[in-house]
């Protein structure tokens, strides 16, 4: 990792630890989702900083998944021996990952975000009172698969990003 990558990694890891802490304490969904969105965006930027400066943050997580689809080093490090298994894993989490990414204020438009009441110009709803559909998805098998994959990425990133 270069220095820019290291800086983003320590911050992403810190966000992720807070996410797991909030989750274990049963804190409101919006807070867990906020940290999930932030930690995945920063983790993506750790990887993307490998090549060059990353000017934009939006859609970084999906960009990251596309990038590691063609990275044998990351695949090997995470223990996927065949490219078919690797593709299947990435495809399996893609739509949930996109839903997490859409929680970012710059992608949410006037819609719900876990961070601020909305719509921005005339708020009528607050995140803590809102039932986020993506939260329901995270409680299901696919959500556990995504979080397990993120655990592995955070564990192995220092060696393969």
């Amino acid at each position, binding site marked *: 990792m270069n220095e820019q990558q290291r800086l983003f990694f320590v911050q992403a890891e810190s966000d992720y630890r807070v996410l797991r802490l909030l989750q274990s304490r049963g804190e409101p969904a919006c807070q867990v989702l906020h940290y999930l969105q932030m930690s995945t965006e920063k983790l993506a930027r750790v990887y993307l900083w490998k090549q060059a400066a990353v000017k934009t943050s939006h859609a970084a997580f999906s960009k990251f998944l596309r990038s590691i689809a063609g990275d044998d080093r990351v695949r090997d490090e995470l223990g996927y021996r065949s490219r078919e298994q690797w593709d299947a894993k990435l495809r399996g989490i893609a739509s949930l990952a*996109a839903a997490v990414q859409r929680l970012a204020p710059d992608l949410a438009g006037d819609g719900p975000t876990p961070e601020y009441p909305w719509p921005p110009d005339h708020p009528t709803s607050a995140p803590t009172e*809102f039932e986020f559909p993506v939260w329901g998805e995270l409680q299901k098998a696919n959500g556990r698969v995504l979080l397990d994959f993120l655990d592995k990425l955070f564990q192995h990133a220092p060696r393969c990003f």
Partner: protein
Amino acid sequence: MLDPHQLAQQAGLLDDRQWRVFLDDLSKARSQRGRSTVGELPPNPNRDQVAAWLAKKHLAVDPGITDVLYLPKDAPEYEIRLVEANTLLTALPDEEVTPVDFGLNVEGLDFKLLVLDVTPDQWKEIVENRSQLPPGWILDGSQRFGYPSA
């Protein structure tokens, strides 16, 4: 079945929660549609084969990607240039659209992969030749990959 315009008008009537469910289901449906097996590369693949393989992978892995253009003309021998239409992108005012080096790392391949992510509107301008691509990127001789028609 509703056409895209009618579908958009209906979707505009949804409340906040229904809108979130709609977006998530839309992305799920879209990613299911692209789930054909990408398959392995042939032995000693050439640049065109690698580009096609990567384009299909990106369509399969990212539900935001709807179309991919491969631009081989005048590209350096070991450089793969892809333009990808991404429905998850929002164009920001005065934001420069620049290709990102994806850091391709596949054993036996020695190609540099550059990806230009664009919004659907920017994509339309590019394919209609109304928008400038990065310097040296040429639309002539491009190859398009996308979801098969329903």
